[in-house]
């Protein structure tokens, strides 16, 4: 799936112990339906295992 990445940026000094990348998506309600489904498919496993 394609996630429209807006303002992708390398994480800065706060993540000193590991290098992550962060992506910011804005107004996800305006994404095409297929991307909404893709986004949900991408993140739902994380929700299933890591709820906090």
């Amino acid at each position, binding site marked *: 799936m394609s*996630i429209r990445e807006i303002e992708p940026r390398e*994480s800065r000094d*706060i*993540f000193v*112990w*590991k290098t*992550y*990348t*962060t*992506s*910011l*998506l*804005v*107004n*996800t*309600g305006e*994404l095409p339906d297929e991307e*909404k489904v893709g*986004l*949900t*498919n*991408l*993140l*739902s*496993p*994380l*929700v*299933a*295992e*890591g*709820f*906090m």
Partner: protein
Amino acid sequence: MTPAIWEDTKNHVVGCQRLVIIKDDASPVAFAASNLRWWNSYAIYHLEGIIVAVQEQGTGLARALLEEELRATRAGILAFHTQNTKMWKLGEKVAVFSEKLARSLAMIIHSRNPDGIIDKMRYGGNSLYGDGERFEKIAIPDIDWRRGDAKIFAGWVRR
């Protein structure tokens, strides 16, 4: 993966103003979904949900993500609903909780049945967390979380 979790994920990540996804290589390891709201002249970072992969929990990633978001949005107030003491403590690390503020913002952050700082049966008469036995250890004790009550957090962001 249950249909309920898929739907719950969709409800959190689709329709929010900001969705930040943290990836380790190509795999997502955390995300935060939020909306920005306003109260008087203050920007409220309304956290709809924050999730961290099990293997990353306890590393400080959730706090780092939240602090980064508060900086990026220049929000003066952090607000959210929760049934979880870990989530509540995370809020207290980055913001100074105010009961008065929580009462004032209850409707602005879309509480359903606010009674003081408890949103009664917010999660439809059920706990948001499926595994009640496991969740009980970290549930906020002074709410009826099994019936879906959630506590309203609102606090001034620490600078």
